[in-house]
C-alpha cells in the first residue's frame, strides 16, 4: 500500500523510526518499574546469603514497613517537605513574584528573574554546596548576617533548612508558569475591575484566579511530584542527623545502599511509584479536560 502520510514515510518505516526509542525506554524505564514489584516481594540483599539466593517474602516488606518507625518518620518528613517547600512555599512565592514583577521596571524584572532562574539551572551538587557554605556553623554567611555565631543550621534545624533550600531552588518553575498564566488574563478585565474600584484582593479573587485556576492545579501537582522525588536533600544532610531529615528518596537510598536491604527498599520505591502514578493520572486528566 502507498504511504498516505505527508512525508511518504509509510507505516513500516515509521515503526522503524519509533522502535529504537521505545527499546531504550522499555529497558531503562518500563522494565525497572515492573521489576521493582518483583524485587519488592523478596528479601534480596546487597551482601550475604540473600544476595545470591533471594527468598520470596510476599507482602513481608510492606508489613515490615508499616511497623518500621523509620519509614513512618520518613513519610512524615516527605509530607512536611512537599507541603512546606512546594505546596505553600514555591506556589506562593512563585505567584507573588510573577504578580509583582508584571509592573516592575525592566532592569529589576530581568535581575530578579535572572537570579531566580540561575538558582534553578545550576547543578544540584553545586547549589547544595553553596547552601552548606551559607548555613555552616563556623564560617557561614547566615550566622554572620543574623549575628548567631555557632548555630549549626543543618544539624539543629535540618528540615527547616531543607524547606528553605528547596524554596530557593525550585521557585523559578512556579514563577515562569504563573507569569505565562497571567498573560492569559485579559487586560480589559483588569481595567474593568479597576474602573469599578475593586480592591487588590477582590481583583485577584474575582478576576485573576478564575483564569489561572487550571495553572494553579497543574503547578501544584508538578512541583509536588518533583519535590517528593527530589534527591538533593541527600546532598545537604544525607538524611541526618539521626534520620531527622530522611525524606523518602533518601530513605530508599540508605536502605538499598547503606543497609543493603534491596528488597525492602524496592517495596518502598513501589509506594513512591504509585504516588507518582496517581499524581500523574490526575495531571493528565486535567490536561485533557483543558485541551
Amino acid at each position, binding site marked *: 500500500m502507498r504511504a498516505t502520510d505527508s512525508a511518504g514515510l509509510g*507505516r513500516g518505516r515509521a515503526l522503524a523510526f519509533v522502535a529504537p*526509542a521505545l527499546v531504550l525506554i522499555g529497558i531503562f524505564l518500563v522494565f525497572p518499574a515492573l521489576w521493582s514489584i518483583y524485587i519488592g516481594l523478596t528479601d534480596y540483599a546487597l551482601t550475604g546469603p540473600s544476595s545470591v539466593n533471594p527468598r520470596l517474602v510476599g507482602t513481608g516488606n510492606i508489613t515490615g514497613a508499616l511497623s518500621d518507625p523509620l519509614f513512618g518518620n520518613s513519610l512524615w518528613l516527605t509530607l512536611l517537605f512537599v507541603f512546606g517547600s512546594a505546596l505553600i512555599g514555591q506556589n506562593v512565592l512563585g505567584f507573588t513574584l510573577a504578580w509583582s514583577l508584571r509592573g516592575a521596571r525592566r532592569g529589576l524584572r530581568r535581575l530578579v528573574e535572572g537570579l531566580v532562574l540561575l538558582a534553578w539551572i*545550576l547543578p544540584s*551538587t553545586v547549589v547544595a554546596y553553596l547552601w552548606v557554605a551559607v548555613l555552616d556553623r563556623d564560617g557561614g554567611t547566615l550566622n554572620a548576617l543574623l549575628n548567631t555565631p555557632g548555630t549549626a543550621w543543618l544539624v539543629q534545624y535540618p528540615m527547616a533548612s531543607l524547606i528553605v533550600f528547596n524554596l530557593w531552588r525550585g521557585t523559578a518553575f512556579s514563577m515562569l508558569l504563573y507569569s505565562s498564566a497571567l498573560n492569559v488574563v485579559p487586560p480589559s478585565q483588569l481595567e474593568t475591575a479597576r474602573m469599578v474600584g475593586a480592591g487588590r484582593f477582590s481583583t485577584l479573587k474575582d478576576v485573576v484566579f478564575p483564569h489561572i485556576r487550571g495553572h494553579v492545579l497543574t503547578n501544584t501537582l508538578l512541583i509536588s511530584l518533583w519535590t517528593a522525588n527530589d534527591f538533593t536533600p541527600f546532598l545537604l544532610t544525607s538524611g541526618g542527623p539521626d534520620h531527622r531529615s530522611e525524606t523518602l528518596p533518601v530513605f530508599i537510598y540508605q536502605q538499598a*545502599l547503606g543497609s543493603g536491604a534491596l528488597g525492602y527498599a524496592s517495596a518502598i520505591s513501589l509506594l513512591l511509584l504509585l504516588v*507518582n502514578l496517581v499524581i500523574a493520572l490526575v495531571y493528565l486528566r486535567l490536561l485533557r479536560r483543558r485541551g
Partner: protein
Amino acid sequence: MTTTLVLRRIGYSAFFAVILAFFAIPMLWLASAPFDSRPGLGLRWPDWTLDNVAATFDHPYALTSLVNSLVLCGLAMVVTTVLAACAAYALSRVRIPGRDVLLYVLLLLSSVVTGTAAMVPIFVMMYQLGLINSQYGTALVIAGGMLPAAIFILKDFVDAVPRSYEESARVFGASPRQILLHVVLPIARPGIATIVVWSFVQAWGNFLLPFLLLRDITSQPAAVLMRTLYDEGGSANLTVIPVFSLLYSIPVVVLYLFVSRRYGFRFHGGIKS
C-alpha cells in the same frame, strides 16, 4: 493618599530587596571564593588571585571528571536527540496503530518513573549486567530516562511545522530521505537545538544515577566528584571546590544563555529546566 502611596512604595522596594538578597547571597560565594587567596565558607571581598585555578588544574581528578562529564553527557545527549527526533517525527506524521495510547503511556512514564523511584531496580539491573562503572551503560540509562520528555518536546515542534512543506516536496518528486534532509531537518532545527541543550544540561546536572552506577573515582563525572570533594571526611578542600564548582557550572549557564538568546526562552510546561 500620598502616605499610603509612599508606604506602598517602601513595601514594594523592601520586598524586592529581601528577594534579591535571598536569591543572590548563596550565589555570590561562587563569584568570590574561586578568586580569593584564602577562600572560606563565608562571603567576603576576595583578595584576588588565580592560584586556586592552578591548584584545581593540578588536582588528580578535577579535570578528568569534567572530561568524564563531557563524555557521559555528550553520549546521553546524542542518543536522546537522535532517537527522540526519529520517534517524534514518525509519531507526528504517521498514524501508527495504537499511537494515542503510546503517547499517553509515554507522557505518564516521563513523570512517574523518576530516577529516585527506580534507583533500586536500575542499580540491581546494572549490577547484574556487570555494567557498574561503565560510562556507556550509565549514559544509556540517563538517555532512557530523558527520552519520553524529549519525544514530547520535539513532537510539539514537529506538529507545529505545516505538513504542506513535506507534501510540496513530495509532489516535486522528493524521496522520504530527501524530504528529511532538505526540508524537515532544517525546519526543525530550533527544536533539535532545544533538545540538544536540554538533554545535555539535564545529564550534566544528574547526580543520582552516576553516583549509583559509577563507583570508581576515575570514571566519575563532575557532579559526583563535587560531592566527593566536600564529603571527604569533613576536611573539604577549599582551594579546589570553589574553582571546580565554577568550572562545572559555567557550561550550563552558557548553554541557557545561548538558547534563550538564539531561540527565545520557550516555556515547556511540565518539563523541568
